[in-house]
């Protein structure tokens, strides 16, 4: 695997974690609204 591919993958996984957290908050917000 090329160095650049590893770097892009690292950026993608890191932001996926943050987006996943934001998605989790969104689901909780929908549940709280009923």
């Amino acid at each position, binding site marked *: 695997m*090329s*160095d*650049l591919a*590893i*770097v892009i993958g*690292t*950026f993608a*996984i*890191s*932001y996926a*974690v*943050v987006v996943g*957290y*934001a998605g989790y*908050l969104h689901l*909780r*917000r929908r549940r*709280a*609204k*009923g």
Partner: protein
Amino acid sequence: MNRVRILLATAGIAVLTGLWFAFISPVDRLQGEFSRILNLHAPFMWVAFLAFGVTAFASIMWLIRRTLRWDRLAVASVELGVVFTATGLFTGMVWGQAVWGRAWDWADPRMASTAVMFFVYIGYLALRRAIPDPEMRAKRSALLGAIAVIQVPLVYFSVNLFRSLHQTQSIRPDGATMPREMLTALLVNFVAITYLYFALLVGRLHLARLEEASAAETARGPDAVTPPRLSEVKDV
């Protein structure tokens, strides 16, 4: 579009701008493409420090004022701090494996102290789940939140105090140890990821208020439910 959505959308634009700068900036001669991880690793860890600092401030304010909003802010910021510390550790491990030949070393003071800080704040979240009484939960977590922040300067200055695989700070009062283009990309990412933290924090606080309102409504529930008429109940 509500305030939270506007904040998150603009944070998304800021992050994309940061990514653009991260991938057009020049790379380090020795580390090659892996030096781009600096634009993610350093801002994520900075935001984690900021988040735990905000938690400490909110915890102290709760101990003084005893109002629920400070407790809300403390827990919201810890959650974000844990997410950003986890991603900061992950990016650091990938970078370490690439340039040092090892992803983790417990003998390194920066890595070890960051791991301890991460687990202490996981413990903070576990503590909150273990205490059902809101007043007691707020009190105990405020004490922990105010004390645990001592780790932040320890993690930050661990590279100056002990021998470490990590380099010392790249941005110093007497200037930066990197070319201007790399510094610009790093600063853009610092701003973008800090803005992302504030957008998520506002969203998390909004959620906490909604959940409290929902819980209060559930608590009033039995009065709101109309009991069935005797004729509607079959097995009498």
